[in-house]
């Protein structure tokens, strides 16, 4: 009995330990940019974000004036009883009593610091990164050497609104169209019904790449390219097979009696659709809406092709990709921008996780 208990305890330790390890592994990447987005521009560039945790670091306790001490950087120097060349001091020389002597800067204008190793945290948090990324105006930065750089803001505000303008209709329109179609497939008889539904099923996994070149030609001919309508319709077209298929599965399981009594009372199909089917289908509509919304919000390829030429209409994903391309090493902007782009999907995700999971189980995965 005793050994059984022990084994159980060990087993639970193994299960929870492994699980915890995996959770930590999965969370660290996001945590890293979240923390970094609040760190100061210079801190991000010179130290890892994990320095917000307590760690030991060399910090200056005293400075030595080069000319006063009469040091000649071209030869062997003696500082605080330690001798070494300029290169050695530049890399830092540790003294026997636990201190470090480091030459900061170049040979002529540099200085010498005596440093001690102390426990510290790097908690220089700021909201400045977000201000710069969101705003459209210019920002000034003072470098440590006194020069000032002017950096344009990244105007994520505009991109955010554009993404909303694209994502909301691109979510509602396909759902509306698909629900009408699902209703017709489920509760109406008409010639070609089976053939049309087979088309829907066949198109479920067709890669959207197949349609991009012909559609771009149509859009150019119709002068639609670069408009919101163009991208709404594109997302509608690409999301429609799955939407129709899933909503058909749901609408066709609604109880038949409700419809029959409504028709006996003289209701038209349109009334039954708006008054009965739409309200009854809310759970299924919500599940699919979450997926379509996340998919459209996170889309990059479709936006790149149909909105690509017009910077006015740039979406969040395009803006982010542009910052990666133009200033790939300015991590204070990239991290803040990435978080701005994630805020809404994460809110939707946490707020509606129940529907999200339900949608997944119903098969809400785009082909």
């Amino acid at each position: 009995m005793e050994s059984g208990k022990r084994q159980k305890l060990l087993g639970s330790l193994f299960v929870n330990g492994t699980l915890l390890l995996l959770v930590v592994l999965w969370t660290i990447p996001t945590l890293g940019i979240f923390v970094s987005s609040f760190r100061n521009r210079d801190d991000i560039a010179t130290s890892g974000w994990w320095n917000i945790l307590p760690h030991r670091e060399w910090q200056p306790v005293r400075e030595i004036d080069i000319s006063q001490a009469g040091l000649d950087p071209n030869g062997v120097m003696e500082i605080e009883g330690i001798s070494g060349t300029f290169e050695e001091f530049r890399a830092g020389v540790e003294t026997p009593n636990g201190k470090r002597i480091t030459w900061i800067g170049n040979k002529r204008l540099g200085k010498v610091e005596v440093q001690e190793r102390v426990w510290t945290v790097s908690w220089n948090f700021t909201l400045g990164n977000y201000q710069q990324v969101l705003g459209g105006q210019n920002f000034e930065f003072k470098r440590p050497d006194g020069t000032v750089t002017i950096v344009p803001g990244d105007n994520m505000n505009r991109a955010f609104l554009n993404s909303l303008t694209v994502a909301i209709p691109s979510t509602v329109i396909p759902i509306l169209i698909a629900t009408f179609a699902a209703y017709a497939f489920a509760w109406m008889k008409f010639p070609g019904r089976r053939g049309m539904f087979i088309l829907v099923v066949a198109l479920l996994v067709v890669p959207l790449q197949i349609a991009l070149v012909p559609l771009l030609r149509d859009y150019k001919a119709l002068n639609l390219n670069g408009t919101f309508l163009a991208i709404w319709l594109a997302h509608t077209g690409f999301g429609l097979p799955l939407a129709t298929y899933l909503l058909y599965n749901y609408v066709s399981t609604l109880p038949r009696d409700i419809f029959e009594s409504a028709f006996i009372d003289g209701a038209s199909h349109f009334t039954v659709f708006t008054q009965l089917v739409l309200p009854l289908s809310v759970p299924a509509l919500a599940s699919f809406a979450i997926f379509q919304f996340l998919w459209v919000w996170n889309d990059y390829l479709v936006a790149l092709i149909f909105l690509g030429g017009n910077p006015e209409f740039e979406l969040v994903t395009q803006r982010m990709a542009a910052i990666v391309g133009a200033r790939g090493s300015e991590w204070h902007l990239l991290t803040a921008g990435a978080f701005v782009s994630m805020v809404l999907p994460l809110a939707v995700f946490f707020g509606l996780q129940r529907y999200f999971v339900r949608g997944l189980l119903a098969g809400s995965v785009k082909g």
Partner: protein
Amino acid sequence: MDLLNNKGEQNQSVGGRILSLIGRVLLAISIPLIAFYVLYQGFLFLRDSNAPQIIITLVAIVWGVGGVAILYWIFNNLVERLSDTWRTRLLPFVFVGPAMAILAWYLAIPTLRTFWLSLFDRNGPPKGLNVLQQLSSDAFVGLGNYAEVFQPGGLMFLAFRNNLMWIIFGSTLSVSFGLIIAVLADRSRMEKIAKSFIFLPMAISFVGASIIWNFIYEYRPPGQPQVGLLNAFVTGLGGQPQAWPQWVNIAPWNNLFLIVIVIWLQAGFAMVLFSAALKGIPEELLEAGRIDGANEFQIFFRIMIPYIQGTIISVWTTIVIFTLKIFDVVWVMTGGQFGTHVIATQFYRQSFTNNNSGYGSAIAIVLLIAVIPVMYYNLRQFRKQEAF
């Protein structure tokens, strides 16, 4: 309702009936015309206006969503004015028509058009000629583009190899991690919270994920403080920092640093489906296994995996299709440089950067052919459903 209406009409004078008929016809024509006019004005406003952005956003949303709803309402209204027979005949098409029209315009017909384009050279079929003339023009190259696509050692050869790596490593590892996490979570008291954390990356865009992982892979020359986690770790252990995805010396294995991102994103998806499937295994089955002396590993491999086999296959297929079309991650992280091009990035480059519509279309058709087995399977499953 209809009976009452008919009686009411019969009681009216002839003039009144004609007037009401004219009125109804005028109404039937004018409502759609006014609606189309308003919608068109909305379109022009959105395309050309300089109004503040928040207003444009609001107008666009109302215009787009409202416009579609109004169109349905109008067509329904028009059809409802027809006689009973015509109404029953036409109404289904009011409901199903828009969906079918969009599917045809956006997916079905483009498939044929892309195939047609793939038979011609970079500029596509010459304009202003009929089909026969196009076929006999110099621009017609037959299967030439496909020959180029499958040419050993060519551009696409590399992309196919990389995509194969994506499919093999991406799907296998996503499924394995998803399964391991689902099984562990099932036995843990932290199930809910652990699953939320693993699942969270699913809400993040590929572009966002690329930034997140670029930050982990960030490279600084040796001697400088490493701000990227992986390089800090490697230098901490005494290794050399590397710009991981750009590390051409280890090609094609540098692709793995990109594939990790998709595993990170997709494991949560696999986990949720497996978790639900595992909960469907009858408790008695597992108990019986334990009583017969099976250890936990035997239970996992001999009972659980066979039981949820169907789910595993469908999750696997989904992730395979998904990695087959992978684009954003590669495009943002490396742009296809350093030997990381995949099918979809080459498709984009050939179609839109090099403007070679023939070659690009041939690549798209290859993508389509790759998913045909899944399409066939879906259709066969559908045929088995007797209800339809």
